[in-house]
């Protein structure tokens, strides 16, 4: 839920303030997520980023797919549905899935 300030900013059309409010929300540790994904994909550190497309990764196969469901559950406490996961295109999309709740 947006804060009252954020609602007010939106109403008043102050996008600058709205953006800063949004940034203040707690963010997932991006580096940690990338490191977890590198471990899952058994790939070198620094070889992927949020922009990396899943279809460009040979390691993104059916086993990695299930490993991601397991990681989301055990490391982030989020039960990702295979349907949602199938729609993900990039590493950034995957991060959004575990950020969801």
């Amino acid at each position, binding site marked *: 839920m947006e804060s009252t300030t954020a609602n007010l900013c939106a109403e008043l059309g102050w996008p600058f303030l709205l953006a800063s409010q949004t940034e203040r929300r707690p963010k997932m540790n991006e580096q940690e997520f990338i490191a977890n994904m590198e471990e899952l994909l058994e790939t070198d550190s620094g070889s992927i980023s949020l922009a990396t497309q899943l279809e460009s990764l040979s390691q993104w*196969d*059916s*086993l990695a*797919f*299930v*490993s991601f*469901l*397991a990681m989301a*559950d*055990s490391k982030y406490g989020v*039960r*990702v*549905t*295979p349907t949602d*996961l199938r729609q993900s295109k990039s590493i950034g999309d995957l991060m959004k899935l575990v950020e969801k709740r």
Partner: protein
Amino acid sequence: MAIAKVPGVRIAGIASAVPATRVPVTAAAEIFGADMIQKISQNTGIEYRHLTSPGMCSSDLCFVAAKRLLEELRWEPASVEALIFVTQTPDFPHIPATACTLQMRLGLSSSCAAFDVTLGCSGHVYGLWLAMSLIAGSGLSRVLVLAGDVASVLSSPADRAVSLLFGDAGSATAIEKDVTASPCVFSMGTDGSGWKNLIIPSGMQYARYPRDATTCIRRTDEDNNQRSAEDLFMDGAEVFAFTIREVPPLVKKVLNAAGWALDEVDAFVFHQANKFMLTHLAKTMKVPLNKIPLSLQEYGNTSSASIPLTITTQLREEISSQSLRLLLVGFGVGFSWGACAIQCGPLVAPPVVLVDKSEAWPC
């Protein structure tokens, strides 16, 4: 389902039987390549499987297990009042029920009730629940639950999602009235919306997707697996997602009802789905891995026989000599699941029997 508590019934013995033919998963290297096999095997934990050959059915494995168990228990065949055969791989496509042929083959009395239950991974727990309820509720004294599958034959050899997963096995569990036994606690459940995630879509003339000239043709899917509509299909991700959603609360519910703390359970005997899944369940439920016996390394995923096979191969010494608190948990095809908290043993548990093709029913 609400919790069911069944008093006054015990497991008298458990036996299992597997085909003598033992095949390493590396035998499929020609199809998938050695690297892929290693990757799959690391994930599933499966290194060998005992595989049937044409003409040897689930019922043959269960028959051998049952015969051995009746001998060891010194039960007169005529004393068995009901036989429940749990399988997804019966002897005949539609009729008759395999349980009827097993009544004859085992020399059970003609006053014995016999019927089939069509369930796989959850089937053994369902069989136990039915057998125990028949004794507690209908006043029977002795019931046999035969649970087994030859699931290895159902998959296409070129579908890496399933072809190295399933092993073949049969089991027999002898259940009898015992007023001194502590109540067994059961909970079952079903989510039929998962029906299409573990399925053989076609293969029969009169069924949902009637067999025709094309249903047996194997085609290559987007994951480069080859399979026809008459082969087993498994969506591993959907099965995994369902399992991690349903099994932990199921375990908690049954333990609560039994009044057992997690660390008071001597062994969690899970359906042997695959090692990755069981390790994940252990981690999220905080169950130490040494309390989860595994038979899948040697036998693969043996469908309805996996729980009794795991007991007789991994817990045989303990359960033959002492009483154990076991949590039995079956889950999978359907989707269907069931769990049972049971205090059992010492009970009769002969070593797993190897079955030769010559022992198949020569009907």
